[in-house]
């Protein structure tokens, strides 16, 4: 994308460097001059917020690893040692733990923004797929990180989630033992989870680079969903979006700091302050809030489907609920990207959001009475949205007229 470059090496040294490693040119093209639609709203700042959160989690995580001990006899106490004795340890540990929740809050907003404005549609399918891949990697990382304090919720989460793999026919049990490094969750499990929890964020960072690369080929989508037509539609990324994103990050830090300093444990579960005891399961085990929608889907399948038993069925629907996201670009065939110009889609989008929130709630509710029925309905609707509603909508719906360009749409807005 060198056509955007206005870079001319200023000094001899810069010229020398530019011919060997054009890093300044690259930064200028992609971090400063990159033409960005000028009508991006605040929902678009969550990309920068997520990049920021990844850095926060990696830095605090590296620090915590300096004081943490991945051994079943010592892990719980070493986390308390961090909280009690390490200089500033309580804040650093709380930032990492609360940070996981904030990271997921931001990623959900980012995903739902993409879904509303059709950011997954051509030519951004790969961008979307890489994003879903990051989401999956984040879930794996967060799950393994949650195991590390080795409290009751840690140990039982590890037990329950690894058991998912046992549902796979034939190879299930050997696979389960392979994952755990034993017949039950124990020291080998903890130790390998620690290793992988340290590794995966760097894999995420690598996929984030690809994600941004795939973004910079077609450029940003925008709230109108209309392609950039001329340079009048865009502004350079710096200073316009660097400052807007930075403002977004600072705003995001306010609730983040609120939780870290005033309620560091409120997003967690009290039972995780009890050391893991393989003989006693807590009365209500629930995953962290950000897994609840998918956990609800996992539990909703409590009946056999033909020759598939309920356990395997739950796992298939659980995996399917995430896998289906990869196919979203081809399930929604409407030519119009932005939900703003799709009168019917808009309603179904919000219905999907409500349904997703309901799944979150049901994931934490006990599996009894009305909750079981509701979980089944919401699970069905989750899949129906992707497999029935979106394909049908693109045929039935008459979109509203699109503005001819981004410039035109913002002019109209300024006078209204």
């Amino acid at each position, binding site marked *: 994308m060198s056509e955007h470059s206005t870079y001319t090496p200023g000094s001899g040294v810069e010229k020398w460097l530019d011919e060997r490693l054009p890093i300044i040119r690259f930064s200028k093209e992609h971090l400063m001059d990159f033409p960005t639609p000028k009508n991006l709203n605040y929902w678009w700042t969550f990309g920068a917020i997520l990049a920021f959160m990844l850095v926060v989690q990696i830095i605090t995580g590296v620090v915590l690893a300096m004081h943490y001990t991945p051994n079943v006899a010592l892990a719980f106490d070493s986390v308390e040692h961090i909280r*009690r004795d*390490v*200089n*500033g340890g309580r804040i*650093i540990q709380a930032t990492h733990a609360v940070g996981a929740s904030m990271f997921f809050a931001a990623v959900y907003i980012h995903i739902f923004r993409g879904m509303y404005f059709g950011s997954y549609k051509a030519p951004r399918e790969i961008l979307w797929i890489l994003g879903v891949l990051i989401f999956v990697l984040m879930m794996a990382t967060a799950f393994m990180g949650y195991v590390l304090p080795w409290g009751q919720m840690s140990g039982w989460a590890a037990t329950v989630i690894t058991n998912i793999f046992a549902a796979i026919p034939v190879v299930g049990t050997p696979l389960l033992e392979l994952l755990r490094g034993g017949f039950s969750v124990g020291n080998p499990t903890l130790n390998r989870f620690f290793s992988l929890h340290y590794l995966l964020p760097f894999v995420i960072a690598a996929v984030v680079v690809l994600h941004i690369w795939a973004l910079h080929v077609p450029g940003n989508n925008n709230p109108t969903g209309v392609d950039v037509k001329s340079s009048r539609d865009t502004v350079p990324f710096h200073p316009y979006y660097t400052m807007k994103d930075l403002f977004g990050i600072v705003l995001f830090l306010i609730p983040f700091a609120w939780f870290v300093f005033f309620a560091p444990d409120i997003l967690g579960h009290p039972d995780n302050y009890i050391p893991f005891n393989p003989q006693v399961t807590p009365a209500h085990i629930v995953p962290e809030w950000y897994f609840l929608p998918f956990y609800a889907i996992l539990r909703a399948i409590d009946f056999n489907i033909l020759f598939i038993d309920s356990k395997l069925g739950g796992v298939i629907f659980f995996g399917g609920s995430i896998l289906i996201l990869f196919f979203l670009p081809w399930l929604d065939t409407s030519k119009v990207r932005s939900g703003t110009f799709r009168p019917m889609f808009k309603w179904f989008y919000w219905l999907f959001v409500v349904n997703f929130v309901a799944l979150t709630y049901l994931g934490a509710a006990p599996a009894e009475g009305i909750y079981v029925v509701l979980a089944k309905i919401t699970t069905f609707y989750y899949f129906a949205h992707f497999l029935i509603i979106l394909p049908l909508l693109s045929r039935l719906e008459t979109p509203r007229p699109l503005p001819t360009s981004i410039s035109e749409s913002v002019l109209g807005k300024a006078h209204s």
Partner: protein
Amino acid sequence: MATQAEHHSTRRDFLFVATGAVGAVGAAAVVWPLINQLNPDASTLALASIEFNLAGIEEGQSVTIMWRGLPVFVRHRTPAEIAEAQAVPLSELKDPATDQERTKPGHEQWLVMIANCTHLGCVPVGDSGDFDGWFCPCHGSHYDSAGRIRRGPAPTNLVLPPYEFLSDTLIQIG
């Protein structure tokens, strides 16, 4: 027009400078705890100063205790060792120090030293060497009965930790 534009640009500059300065302060405030966490933690600092009771150590006997993760020799010297150490002329010493400087006044029988050879950190062997003191088997450094280097590659005398007598039989190291 010109003054108005100028006025605008100064206000703008001030705003940008103020924002940048506040942001820099914030960044520094974040960086410091991330560095400070590397410093010794509270449980380590709690053991930075220890008390040790000398009552059980017989004359001529030496014990090794641990302080801040380092071995420390505590030796109850015999009158002969004290006399020998005090008799050495400073000119014969590689790292000149009187025996008085190596002990606390009124407690000359007690020698308290960090037990790592000042050469490369091995622990010297007691009651040996050519000077009735310590001998480091790693590289052959000889120390006398006041822990002073007499022969061998070590550059300085055995290091004295900061310590004081709380009573005749109780010392506080660190």
